[in-house]
């Protein structure tokens, strides 16, 4: 019996020691890819298919292996594992990163630049916003495999119930409109909703859905992604072009002006709520919605009875003629600690396979991902049997080609984004603050915090 115990002890010890010695994520025989998409998600499946086809077409090269590390709401889980791999010097050859995170990782020397390894003209095949998103200090690091977009959707049944003069405030799908026009429409809808018995308004809760509920529960990036464009549309931003200066930018007169106009959504009687019901727009509880591109598939597949129409993202200042609509998504980057030039070249070859025109088209068809390749945008099908689907994609396609802008490139983006969403947007919404003096104070306080945190990037 004692021998058995001793044997078990030795086995346990050996196992403990084996557990301590981890094998590197990458080895010479294979190229390892980490992705945040789960294996059973359409995104995970499309990557698996793409990797499979690469291995089939390159039987003599290193085998490419993809590992799915599912992320939680804001990317945690996957990011935690990635950070652990960084600490352990155990990074995979290729991995996915959310666009705004690229700068922080590149600034820390963790990413390998791609310009010197890509095929001629490959970079030019990406849309401007994707190139901008993947570029840090003039060097290209991230190949975005999917773009994104935000538009305004409205419930057709609810809008049809409105008086003609209010209904006339809705722009056509191919028209620009301003935030002021959006606010006027929203206010009129709310006034009507509170006096009507029309069945379309039977479940009415608020005029517009903004997904600020997500922000309140910790997914801060949603707020920044959705509403930083209001600042862009007023010719300002949340951080300067150097990525580390916030004073005079985030708290500038133009920023405060844009945020004060955003705040009018929460002026009593409030037009939007920070605690709106789950799927409020989907279930007819709001007439309007500031909607991400993923709404299109979600609504057409799961809410076939909802007649949703789509119009462009509103511009804060009608005279502004730059880029101002939300964009960007996750991208493939490569391990910057790879010193073998030949291997780095091979790794970038795999990245090109995962991001070329053909892949971009495949991703659109398999997952509804907005193509990031100029030559693949035409693949967006706007001539299906579903007119709502067609209209939504027409609007989103227009924005991708003409008005999409990358989120700021900053090494401290996570903190910047969180502070902007939590200390400004959420505070405005939760405290129902609508005056510019208080909003100026919010921005000044946020600037102080961010400035302090950003000291390390200025050294």
């Amino acid at each position: 019996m004692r021998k058995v115990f001793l044997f078990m002890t030795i086995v346990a010890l050996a196992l403990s020691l084996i557990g301590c010695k981890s094998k590197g994520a990458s080895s010479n025989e294979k190229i390892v890819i980490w992705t945040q998409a789960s294996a059973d998600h359409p995104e995970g499946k499309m990557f698996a298919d793409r990797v499979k086809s690469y291995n089939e077409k390159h039987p003599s090269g290193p085998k490419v292996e993809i590992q799915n590390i599912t992320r939680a709401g804001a990317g945690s889980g996957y990011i935690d594992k990635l950070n652990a791999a960084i600490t352990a010097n155990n990074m995979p050859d290729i991995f996915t990163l959310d666009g705004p995170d690229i700068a922080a990782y590149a600034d820390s020397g963790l990413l390998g630049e791609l310009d010197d390894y890509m095929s001629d003209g490959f970079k030019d095949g990406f849309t401007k916003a994707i190139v901008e998103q993947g570029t840090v200090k003039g060097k290209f690091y991230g190949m975005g495999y999917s773009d994104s977009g935000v538009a305004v959707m409205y419930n057709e049944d609810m809008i049809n119930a409105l008086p003609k003069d209010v209904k006339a405030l809705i722009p056509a799908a191919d028209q620009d409109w301003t935030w002021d026009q959006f606010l006027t429409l929203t206010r009129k809808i709310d006034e009507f909703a509170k006096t009507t018995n029309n069945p379309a308004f039977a479940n009415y809760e608020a005029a517009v859905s903004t997904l600020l509920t997500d922000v309140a529960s910790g997914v801060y990036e949603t707020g920044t992604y959705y509403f930083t464009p209001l600042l862009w549309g007023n010719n300002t931003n949340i951080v300067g072009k150097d990525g580390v200066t916030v004073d005079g930018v985030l708290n500038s007169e133009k920023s405060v002006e844009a945020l004060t106009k955003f705040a009018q959504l929460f002026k009593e009687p409030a037009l939007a709520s920070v605690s709106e019901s789950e799927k409020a727009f989907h279930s007819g509880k709001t007439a309007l919605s500031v909607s991400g591109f993923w709404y299109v598939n979600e609504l057409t597949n799961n809410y076939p009875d909802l007649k949703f129409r789509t119009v462009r993202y509103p511009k804060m200042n009608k005279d502004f003629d730059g880029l101002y609509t939300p964009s960007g998504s996750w991208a493939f980057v490569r391990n910057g600690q790879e010193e073998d030039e030949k291997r780095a070249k091979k790794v970038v070859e795999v990245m090109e396979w995962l991001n070329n025109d053909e892949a971009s088209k495949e991703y659109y068809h398999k997952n509804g991902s907005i193509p990031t390749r100029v030559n693949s945008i035409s693949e967006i099908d706007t001539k299906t049997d579903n007119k709502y689907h067609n209209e939504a994609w027409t609007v989103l396609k227009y924005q991708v080609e003409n008005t999409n802008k990358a989120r700021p490139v900053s090494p401290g983006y996570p903190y910047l984004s969180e502070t902007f969403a939590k200390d400004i947007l959420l505070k405005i919404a939760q405290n129902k603050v609508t005056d510019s003096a208080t909003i100026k104070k919010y921005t000044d306080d946020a600037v102080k915090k961010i400035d302090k945190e950003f000291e390390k990037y200025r050294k």
Partner: protein
Amino acid sequence: MKLEKRSPFIQVRNTTEHYRQSQHYKKGEVISAYGFLTPAVILALLFIVLPIILAFTYGFTDYYLLKPNDKHFNGLDNFKQMLSDDVLKQSFLNTIKFVVLVVPLQLSMALGLALIANKKIRGVGVFRTAYFSPAVLSLVVISILWTVMLNPTSGLINEILSNLGIGKQPFLSSASQAMYTIVFISAWSGCGYQMMIFLAGLKNIDHQMYEAAEIDGANPFQKFFYITLPSLKPITMFLVITTTIQAFKLIVQPMVMTGGGPDYSTMTILQYIYEYGFRHRNIGYACAITLMFTLFLVILSIGIKKLFREENVA
């Protein structure tokens, strides 16, 4: 009678000492014992001792998560930063507020439920199971369920309040209500487990004491205050200590339900440490906060332990 009042830990210690003195181990037994101990010791060293040492070391550096090989000693900079960190101060006060509120509430609820469950009435088994069930549910699941039920516009709780003629409440979306809501939910979800411990204590009280009290003309309140409560004192002390320490570890509920908001009103120390360390990648500062918080908890534990000893002596 005197022996019963002594701490069970003291009895165990005495028994072990007696055993140690009276036994002479053979070499093989010693090797086996160390063999059994070794895996646990290795795991403890790897996952408890080493992280503590590393956290202590990192607390004095500018360790940035994405630059693990580029750490610099920065003296007391992190600790100085803590002094001017308003959100940290608020998180600490929020944590204290939570502990001060949840411990008495949760224990009172647990004791109340245990008293009901101790009655020999029909259906008490169902009651016991129903109140124990939250203890086996994941805190994340509980938090999500309550978030849905507390939705200010369409949640079940507000529908009930509306039907009762009470206005809808913002609950988690109000800076003044969010923490109290989390306190209540935490107490509700945790009291079932403690109810079972109280129940075990109640079952062990000698029934003859109640009979004697009845003969002396004691009413139910007197029986509760002079027999039940004193008899449950060791268990209550144990529960106060464990619940207090557990309460200081609050993170799941605010993380899932409010993200620390509104306006940092539910941000707790642990969540702040997590956010600074992993979201903002500032491991050095997060470790410095961890150090100070650990120090606080050690002092608190020593204080409680001292109190516990004094109670035993008394």
